[in-house]
Each structure stands twice: as structure tokens, then as C-alpha cells.
């Protein structure tokens, strides 16, 4: 078994492994940890109320797993903040946090400012646009951090085949992941291809890590986190949890193009700084994912882009056309 496969087997969880919240709360207490939940928002009045109600009821009142719920908003024009406040979340405008710094607008800005504003030893970030919200979106991510000290960064993935015939099925991420990020990682950071959905917006991270890494304020924040945490702490710092299905609005291709462009900028900046650009010449294996029942495995595809020279360099051609 390759190292990467054994990493996948050891560090890939399913949220159902952590259903016993009482046990999780006890373990958290024993380790004397505090956990903050950050919901970055921009015009999310339709879904934010439900998220807060469910997290407060299930993970604060019934099982005291999280210590604070904070909404950090980029300047919503709808009732997002009013609804959030009504259901008892702490609400902040990103621009009011660290007001002496020049304000920037983007999700990454909110995530970054949460490190300053929130108190927890662990911060768990959950997008506010999830319509099938469930407590697993939080406990599934913080549990590996509570149970295993060496784990520093836990990322969500969503994989729930409803009906599938046959033994092996394709798995992995969305369009931008499979078309852009996975090929890039396969070329430059093959270890990071072990993350099934590198762009998922839900993750839980230890403060000691968050305070050490830079935050692109736009689309590149997830990609840069993976590269920076990997560079500083190695692959062993990561874990990933399957949170089943996530229901949200699908983005049109044009919006994905914008996202891909932002990610590419962040990626190139890091690849250059780390001096890995030359690596691309030696890597010829694309690493995709497949699942065999509940086991995830990498599917390695050798793609060698061979080339033919200009036809004019071929003698037979020159003879035939008298060139």
C-alpha cells in the first residue's frame, strides 16, 4: 500500500463515527479545549436562522460542544444580521474588526478576522448557505481535533451515493476541483491530492495553525490553506470527514470561471515561492478518486503528453512537397 493510501485510510472519517456527542463533549472537557463556530455571511437571510437554531440547540444547549457562535458579515443588504442576532448569535461586521487596517471585502477576510475576534482554541468555519444544515457539519469536523492531538486541520467532503450499481464508483469534488485543482496538485503537490474535496468551505482548525498562515481574501483561501499547512506541518496535520450530502445553490459556469481564476493566481504565487514550478516536467500521473463501498482509493492515471515536431522537419514530407 502506498503512503498516500495509508494516509487516506487513517485520516478519512465519516461523521457517523462521532454520533455520541456526550462522549465528544467529555473528551473536549478533559482536554480543556474551547471551540468557536464562525459563519461568514453575505446576504444569507434565507438560511442563517435555521443554521443558528440548530447549532445552538444541539451543540450548545443539549450538548455543550461549542462555546460561541459568531456571524461575521461582509455587509449584507438583507436581514442576515437581524435574524442572526434574534437567534442569539454574536454578530460582527467584518469592517468593524481591526478597524485600523484597510478594509477588504471577501469571504477570506471574514475568516481571517474571526481569528482575532473569536476566543476558541479551535475555530470551525461553516458556510451560511447550506439548506440541509445538521449538527454533523460541526461535530464531524471538530471530533478528529478533539481525539487526536497531531491533527490540526480537518476538512469536509460530501459523498453520498444514493443508488449505485457495481463495485467501484467515481468520487471526488466539484467541477473546479476536478478540472483545475486536482490536476494542479497532481503536478506540483501530489500528496495534497489525498484531500477528496480540497475546496469545500467547511473546516475546523486549531488556532495555533490559523495564526501562522496567510489568508487570501477571495476564492484562493482554501487552496492556499492546504499548501501552507502542508508546507509547514506536513500531510499528517490533516484529516477529512465525510458529511454526506450538502444542499446549496449550484453556481453557473461563468461564476466557476471567476473562482478558477482566483484560485490559479493564489496557486501560482505559492508554487513560485516554494520553487516547485519545475516539478511539473517530471509528474505524469493524475490522481483522481474512486470509492469501493466505504473505502476511498486513488485512481492513478498515467497521462504523458507526447509531442510530434513541426511536419516541415520530417524529411519525407519535404521530399513529397519539394520543400
Amino acid at each position, binding site marked *: 500500500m502506498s503512503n498516500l493510501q495509508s494516509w487516506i485510510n487513517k485520516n478519512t472519517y465519516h461523521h457517523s463515527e462521532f454520533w455520541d456527542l456526550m462522549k465528544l463533549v467529555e473528551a473536549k472537557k478533559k482536554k480543556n479545549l474551547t471551540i468557536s463556530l464562525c459563519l461568514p455571511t453575505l446576504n444569507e437571510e*434565507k438560511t442563517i436562522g*435555521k443554521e443558528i*437554531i440548530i447549532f445552538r440547540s444541539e451543540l*450548545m444547549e443539549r450538548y455543550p460542544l461549542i462555546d460561541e457562535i459568531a456571524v461575521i458579515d461582509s455587509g449584507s443588504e438583507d436581514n442576515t444580521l437581524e435574524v442572526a442576532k*434574534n437567534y442569539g448569535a454574536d454578530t460582527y461586521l467584518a469592517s468593524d474588526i481591526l478597524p485600523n487596517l484597510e478594509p477588504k471585502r471577501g469571504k477570506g477576510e471574514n475568516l481571517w478576522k474571526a481569528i482575532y475576534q473569536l476566543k476558541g482554541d479551535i475555530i470551525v468555519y461553516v458556510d451560511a448557505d447550506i439548506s440541509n444544515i*445538521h449538527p454533523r457539519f460541526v461535530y464531524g469536523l471538530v471530533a478528529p481535533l478533539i481525539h487526536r492531538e497531531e491533527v490540526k486541520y480537518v476538512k469536509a467532503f460530501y459523498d453520498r451515493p444514493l443508488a449505485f450499481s457495481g463495485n467501484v464508483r467515481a468520487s471526488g469534488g466539484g467541477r473546479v476541483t476536478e478540472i483545475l485543482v486536482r490536476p494542479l496538485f497532481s503536478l506540483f503537490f501530489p500528496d495534497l491530492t489525498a484531500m477528496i474535496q480540497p475546496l469545500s468551505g467547511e473546516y475546523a482548525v486549531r488556532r495555533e495553525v490559523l495564526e501562522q498562515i496567510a489568508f487570501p481574501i477571495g476564492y484562493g483561501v482554501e487552496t492556499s490553506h492546504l499548501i501552507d499547512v502542508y508546507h509547514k506541518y506536513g500531510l499528517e496535520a490533516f484529516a477529512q470527514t465525510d458529511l454526506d450530502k450538502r444542499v446549496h445553490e449550484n453556481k453557473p459556469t461563468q461564476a466557476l470561471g471567476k473562482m478558477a481564476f482566483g484560485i490559479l493566481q493564489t496557486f501560482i504565487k505559492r508554487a513560485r515561492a516554494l520553487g516547485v514550478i519545475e516539478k511539473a516536467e517530471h509528474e505524469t500521473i493524475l490522481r483522481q478518486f474512486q470509492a469501493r463501498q466505504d473505502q476511498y482509493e486513488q485512481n492513478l492515471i498515467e497521462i504523458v503528453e507526447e509531442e510530434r515536431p513541426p511536419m516541415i522537419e520530417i524529411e519525407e514530407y519535404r521530399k513529397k512537397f519539394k520543400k
Partner: protein
Amino acid sequence: MKDITSLEKKLSGLEEQLKKYREVLLANLVMIGEIPAPTSDENRRVKFILNRFDEAGLTDSSIDGSGNGIGVLSGKDNSEAILINAHADTIFSAKIDHTMQVSSNSITGPGVADNSLGLAALVTLPYILEDMEVELNRDLVLLAGVKSLGRGNLEGIHFFLDNNPFTIKGAICIEGMQLGRLSYSSIGMLRGEITCRVPESYDWSRFGDASAILTLNEVINKINDIHLPKRPRTSIVMGSIVGGTSFNTIARDATLGFEVRSESQEVVERAGETINDIVLEVSSKTGDQVELDIFAKRTPGGIPYSHPLTKCARSVMETLDIEPRLAPSTSELSALIDKNIPALTLGLTMGERTSKTNETIQIEPIYKGLAQLIGTILAVDGGYCE
């Protein structure tokens, strides 16, 4: 009947106290409401409810032979029990989007009032009573009944009532809305469908003069002509119609869903016979197949207005400033009446657009509705209603 004044004193301030359970109640409401539960397919929803009963430490919770979810909060003296019932099924198919939307003062989604809120109250009740350190004398049996609506015809609660081991002294059915509803009697009812079909062997060259919809229209006109008495009060509700496939094809079939309701069993039966005659007549005249399927019946009954249970509920409502709206019911209440169990149906909040996918309930009145429910339970438990 015991003097209820001492209980009324206890109720003051209860509404305010219940506000602290907002998140727990609403989270239960959202999670229950987002699990589809069309009649006869309530399994997933009932499992969730059972899970909540287990988490609340109700050791005797179980799913019975019919699929009902049952939780038991033991009382000090468990020789007698109070039944709280909320039906678990909805009229909505599993295919429609069951997402609940929460705003500052309301919640919207299919079945949110009928009956996700009733179920949420049912599963939150043990949590609230424990937290408020209320210990009951009698067992509190919490029933999430399946196969209640439409063709389900109260199958779940009938099964429970026929097979349960408890001595039930009183029962309260809870429905999401409207707050103030007080049902203590059942009216006579007969529910069915009339289906018209153009026979397969129909001569299609007879252009344009055959249609199951036209035949059904004939049936509808005749039902509309049935003479109904003003007293006892009687009505025929023609509630739904389905038929045909497109603009330009002759409709091969058409179905009418209807309900006859009356204070008198005799009138219900007579109307049923008349409808049967209409069906036979139209069928023989047109040559189309016309079939009548009656799948649910209720007989009138219930406790009187002056029954101590009704009196208790009214004084609890008055103490909480709720104006009682008396209305007969054809739902689970009638199954309880059939078994001679004194029973009531109460509503928990105000809402609108009932039976639509954007059914909406108001959050603020829920505390009053819950206070009313707990007050009535305490009244029954304290022996004020006997």
C-alpha cells in the same frame, strides 16, 4: 371537580418561562419537518422522534406494530396514563422540497403546522418538563401516530388504542394551528373517491363526445343538487379533482375526492346512499365506468361542553388569555371518542396557507400554545378534570 384556582396561579409566568426553550423546540421542528413523511411512509420521521425520546431518557420508548412512535414519561403512580397524540404523517409527497425557512418571527415549509409543530412539541415536552422539574403523578404517553390522514384513516392510532397496555384516563391531540382551537367532539363523516373511466373499447370515431371529465362533471352536478338539511348541520366538501393528461387528448379518467360531514350519523348515511345511486345512474346513462370508493367513516360523538375536561381546558385557556374556538373534528379525536376516552384537540400557534408548500407559522404565539398544553396536562394530572 377540584377547584382549579391553585393551578391557575401556577400558570402565570409559564408562557415567559417557556421562551428559554425556543432553540430546542424550533430545532426539533425544523429537523422533523425536513424529513418527508407522506401517509404510510413515516418510518424515517418516526425513527428520528424515537431517537429524541431515547435522548430524553424515556426508557420505554418504542415503535409499535403499526409503525407508531411511542415514548413514556413515567409518573409517580403509573397505574394510570395521559395520552398526548400528534399525527406523524403529512399530505406532501416525499418528492417535494421539504426545506424549512426560518425568519425572525416565522417558519415556512410544507407541513410546518400540520403537523411538524405538533410533533416538535411532543418530543420537546419531556425535555421541558425535566428542566422545569415537573414530576407528574400519571404516566405521560407520547404518541406520534402514523397513517392518520386521507386513506390512512387513523390506522396508526386505532392500532395503538387496540393494543396498548396503559389505562388512559384522558387524551390531548395536538395540532400546529390554530391557537384557540378546542375540539371535544367528532362529527359524522364519510370520505371517498369517485373515479370515471372511458372504457378501453370505446369507439374513438365518435369524435369529441366522450370524456371522463364530462362524465365526472355530470356526477358533480348531481351531488351538488342533493338536498342537505340545515339542522343537523351537514355539508359535502368536494375537495380535489384529478383527470386527463393534456389539452388535446380526450380524458380517459377523472377522479373526485369528497367528504360528507354531518352532526347526524343518519344524514351522513343517507347522503352516502344518494351518492351511490348517482354513481350507478350516471354509469348506466353514459356507458362509462363510474366507481365509488368509500375508505373512511367516522361516527359523531364526544364529551359534552360541560365535561370537566373541556371545562378545565377552557379555564386554562382563559387564564392564558386565549379565546377558545370550538370546532368539531374528524381527526384522531374520533378514534379516542370511539374508545370512550375523554379527549380534546388543541392548536399551538397562529399560521396561514395551510396545506400549501409555503405553509407558515408564527413563532411568538407558540409559547402561549405550549403553556396551554402543559397547563391542561397538569390539570388532568392533578385530578381537576374528573
